[in-house]
């Protein structure tokens, strides 16, 4: 038994796909307790018995779509208008923009791609250290992980059979603590870097909010809807996906119909990779 586990760990470290490792250990467990292995089919079919999982493809797609539009740039502009006047302001902007973007794209990992490419060069130009920039962008990319509608929390809730609503509520405090600590650290590290702190202007705040008028309601609807108990998580995901599709493709027209199939495929490849691991994990829970 121990030898098999060690062998599987070695295979995992050598780069074997996680679903294969988990499936192998599940089947090994079933075989040892004389359970017919056709149970693997039943367990994987279990993916079709958890309604909340619908949120995963819908949020992931919405996140991929949003990151292809001008929304990341508009979000940075709003953060800049609100926080740009602080010393170390650009670092704060990065933190705020990343935490928000991660939260309402469901923490599917698109933040670093969507915002990193915008923030990294800006930070570099403003004279922040290379190592600080890289660390900030990568760690800020996972800041929204503990806020609704984070997909990792949903996955955890499904596998561990914990109430997902409680997970979302429980995530608020530690999530906020992470944001505050990273902000305090950035402030401290850059206390001497006061390269022209921009002036605060109500006009810029108004203009930037107006420019993002289509996106601003989204986090309010999604987060308010979930925390306020108006929507189920998968309903919020459906509303988000449809809304983002309509504003980006039909109203703002920042993503053309031609690009849509590619974005759909790319996001669903990620979803398939995640859900197949979840499917075999449900089997390994029972083995």
């Amino acid at each position, binding site marked *: 038994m121990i030898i098999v586990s060690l062998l599987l760990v070695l295979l995992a*470290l050598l780069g*074997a796909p996680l679903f294969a490792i988990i*499936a192998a250990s599940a089947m090994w467990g079933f075989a040892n307790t004389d359970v017919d*292995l*056709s149970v693997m*089919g039943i367990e994987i079919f279990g993916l079709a018995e958890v309604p909340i999982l619908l949120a995963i493809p819908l949020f992931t797609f919405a996140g991929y779509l949003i990151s292809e539009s001008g929304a990341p740039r508009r979000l940075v502009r709003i953060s800049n208008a609100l926080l740009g006047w602080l010393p170390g302001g650009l670092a704060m902007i990065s933190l705020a923009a990343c935490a928000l973007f991660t939260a309402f794209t469901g923490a599917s990992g698109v933040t670093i791609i969507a915002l990193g490419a915008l923030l990294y060069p800006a930070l570099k130009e403003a004279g922040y250290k290379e190592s600080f920039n890289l660390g900030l962008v990568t760690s800020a990319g996972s800041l929204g992980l503990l806020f609704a509608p984070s997909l990792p929390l949903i996955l955890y809730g499904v596998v561990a059979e914990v109430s997902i609503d409680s997970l979302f509520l429980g995530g608020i405090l530690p999530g906020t603590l992470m944001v505050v600590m990273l902000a305090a650290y950035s402030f401290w590290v850059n206390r001497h870097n006061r390269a022209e702190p921009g002036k605060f202007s109500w006009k810029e705040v108004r203009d930037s909010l107006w420019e993002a008028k289509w996106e601003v309601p989204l986090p309010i609807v999604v987060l308010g809807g979930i925390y306020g108990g108006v929507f189920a998580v998968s309903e919020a995901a459906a509303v988000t996906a*449809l809304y983002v599709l309509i504003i980006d493709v039909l109203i703002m027209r920042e993503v053309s119909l031609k690009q849509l199939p590619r974005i759909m*495929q790319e996001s669903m490849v*990620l979803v*398939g990779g995640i859900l197949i691991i979840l499917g075999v994990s449900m089997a390994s829970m029972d083995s």
Partner: protein
Amino acid sequence: MVEQQAGIIARLDRLGRLVENSMLVVLLTSMILLASSQIILRNFFDSGFVWADELLRILLLWTAMFGAVAASRENRQIAIDVLSRFLPGRWKNLAMTLVQFFTAAVSGLIAWHSYRFVNDSRMFEDLLMGDWPAWVFQSVIPLGFAMIAYRYLVFGLASAWKVIRGKGVAA
């Protein structure tokens, strides 16, 4: 003759990609439209389709399987892969061969055993959404894993060939 066969395999491969890609687009679009219309019907008209929630969950299963098959074609399954990057070229190929054959074997086993599950479900005439035979929807599981097994078998053979020929680092 060999070239002709290679041509057919390449064409089948392209066809497979096209089918997978189009299915992903169709499945996702149906999920978005069906899920949103359910919400609208429920909240504004106090109605909805009885079968819709079940169909949505089946669409999710299909999306998961088609997405997983698509992820395997460019070797894009989620993996940790920390050790192999420290291995020198030839050892790396050997490790990849091992890992890919292992993945093919595991997927093949799942395909076979879930095929038996689907077969049972067919014998017992299990139903979904009222009066639809369940095995039709469930068969995506064995088919998907068989496809993943096939892809990793091909990867494994290619890596093994590189080990035998003693070529450098694999892509």
